[in-house]
């Protein structure tokens, strides 16, 4: 049963992306919106729009009964959740199915299973996907901790089994250090949680964040190669690439094959992403979690492979088989995406939702701008600060960075602050140019004042 009337339960740039994908497939696009979003771009582009509640997300984009009622009232046969909001809510997916509609994503059971860290780790291990090596459960004494560490290899991280919030965490590089630190961690865990149980796992000190895009139709699954997303601030990605230039072909193949194995093992349907930590020195990757939705950074994969991920997820969730086989998915050149947020990068990224006075979009071959802005548009303050993404594709990584600089320089957004100056400063940095960074790189770089210095000079 192919989808004919698609209800989009999201906002911002991803709603625009989904409306356009639906219309290109000949599907009637019904856009949900809050009272604060009546004049957003996706509402203007959609075939039909419906208000689902007041500005606060909890009263609109997170309100399951209001969304289902609006979807029924407008005759929708499917709901696309986008990313964020209810996209990874098993309760929402179940409610959509119970209402007789198609949820554009995996089954509620899959969302639930992969959303639970322990269950996801077990599913990964069962599918032969490497996970961060660690003790199987808690260890009670120093001798057991040493035995585990010798099995999994140093450095190791010692954590309170009961804990959270970083208390009780120690990193030991040798057996001697572990023998000193484990008793400290144990007593700290006892003091903080009343439970001295420890957990030991391999410490990956400056990992890269690498993730694999997969697509599944419930039976078969394919990958669309990997993305490098190590440039992060406060655990939010700011700059993403496809592919990961640090990987050799053999590692890339093993990484992507492991993602497909897990996707097949859970009968995955739709678009999904498996996130890994990559230890560059050891050339080892470890699965950490799966995101069971389309992601913000999906366009770099689309630029690299030519696959329309949003269209494909709509079609497979409507009952179609995957439209491509693995050997038809190829990678060409290199793609980079930067996230434009309504924040002032020179004022510690303070949110700054202005009114767009002028908008000059970046253009040219291999340049894509996914956004929801228009001249005169007042950016609502009620939601997250992502305004859009500038994506570039070129034959080489160097050429892609050059193209990114040209695109960001050509682009003009007046009336609001954006994080474009951050991306220009990153593009000018020798370490970024060399691809020499990891997940712990950007925050110290910002604290060292690199942005201010380069911003002033520019």
């Amino acid at each position, binding site marked *: 049963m192919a989808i004919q009337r698609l209800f989009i339960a999201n906002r911002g740039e991803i709603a625009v992306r989904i409306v356009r994908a639906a219309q290109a497939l000949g599907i009637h696009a019904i856009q949900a919106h809050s009272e*604060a979003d009546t004049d957003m771009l996706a509402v203007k582009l959609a075939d039909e729009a419906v208000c689902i509640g007041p500005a*606060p997300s909890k009263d609109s984009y997170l309100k399951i009964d209001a969304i289902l009622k609006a979807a029924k009232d407008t005759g929708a046969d499917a709901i696309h959740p986008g990313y964020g909001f209810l996209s990874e809510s098993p309760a929402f997916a179940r409610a959509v199915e119970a209402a007789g509609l198609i949820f554009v994503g995996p089954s509620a059971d899959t969302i639930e299973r992969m959303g639970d860290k322990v269950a996801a780790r077990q599913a990964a291990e069962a599918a032969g996907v490497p996970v961060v090596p660690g003790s199987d459960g808690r260890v009670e004494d120093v001798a057991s901790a040493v035995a585990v560490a010798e099995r999994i290899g140093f450095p190791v991280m010692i954590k309170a089994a009961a804990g959270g919030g970083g208390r009780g965490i120690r990193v030991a590089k040798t057996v001697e250090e572990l023998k000193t630190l484990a008793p400290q961690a144990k007593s700290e865990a006892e003091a903080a949680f009343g439970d001295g149980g420890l957990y030991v796992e391999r410490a990956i000190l400056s990992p890269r964040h690498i993730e694999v895009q997969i697509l599944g139709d419930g039976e078969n699954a394919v990958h669309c190669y990997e993305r490098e997303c190590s440039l992060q601030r406060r655990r939010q990605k700011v700059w993403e690439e496809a592919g990961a230039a640090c990987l050799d072909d053999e590692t890339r193949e093993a990484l992507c094959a492991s993602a497909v194995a897990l996707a097949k093992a859970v009968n995955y349907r739709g678009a999904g992403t498996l996130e890994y930590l990559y230890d560059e020195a050891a050339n080892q990757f470890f699965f950490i979690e799966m995101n069971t939705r389309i992601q913000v950074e999906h366009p770099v994969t689309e630029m690299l492979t030519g696959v329309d991920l949003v269209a494909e997820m709509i079609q497979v969730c409507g009952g179609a088989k995957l439209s491509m086989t693995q050997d038809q998915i190829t990678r060409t050149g290199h793609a980079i995406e930067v996230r434009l947020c*309504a924040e002032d990068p020179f004022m510690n990224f303070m*949110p700054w*939702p202005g009114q767009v006075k002028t908008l000059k979009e970046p253009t040219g071959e291999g340049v894509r701008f996914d956004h929801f802005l228009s001249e005169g548009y007042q950016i609502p*303050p009620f939601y997250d*600060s992502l305004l859009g993404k500038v994506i570039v594709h070129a034959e080489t990584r160097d050429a892609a960075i050059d193209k990114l600089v040209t695109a960001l320089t050509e682009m003009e957004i007046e009336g609001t602050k954006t994080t474009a100056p951050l991306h220009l400063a990153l593009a000018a940095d020798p370490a970024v140019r060399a691809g020499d960074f990891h997940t712990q790189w950007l925050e110290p770089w910002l604290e060292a004042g690199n942005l201010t210095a380069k911003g002033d000079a520019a």
Partner: protein
Amino acid sequence: MSDIQSPLPGTFYHQASPEEPPFKSEGDDVAVGDVIGLIEVMKTFIQVTAETSGVFVAYKVDNASPVTAGDVVAELK
């Protein structure tokens, strides 16, 4: 009389959290830099502080209500 304006668009709160009392009540002394309320803007909370000293009269918008930049959120005398 002096007005305290919201520096940003967002949602204005009288309290640090639903369990806490309002930052100021009628008759409270207000010093320069005192926190009067919070603005939630794009999932970030930003303090609204007094730029002049005085005595607190009243909040001029309801708790948890939307405001735009420049809206008067409280009054001092």
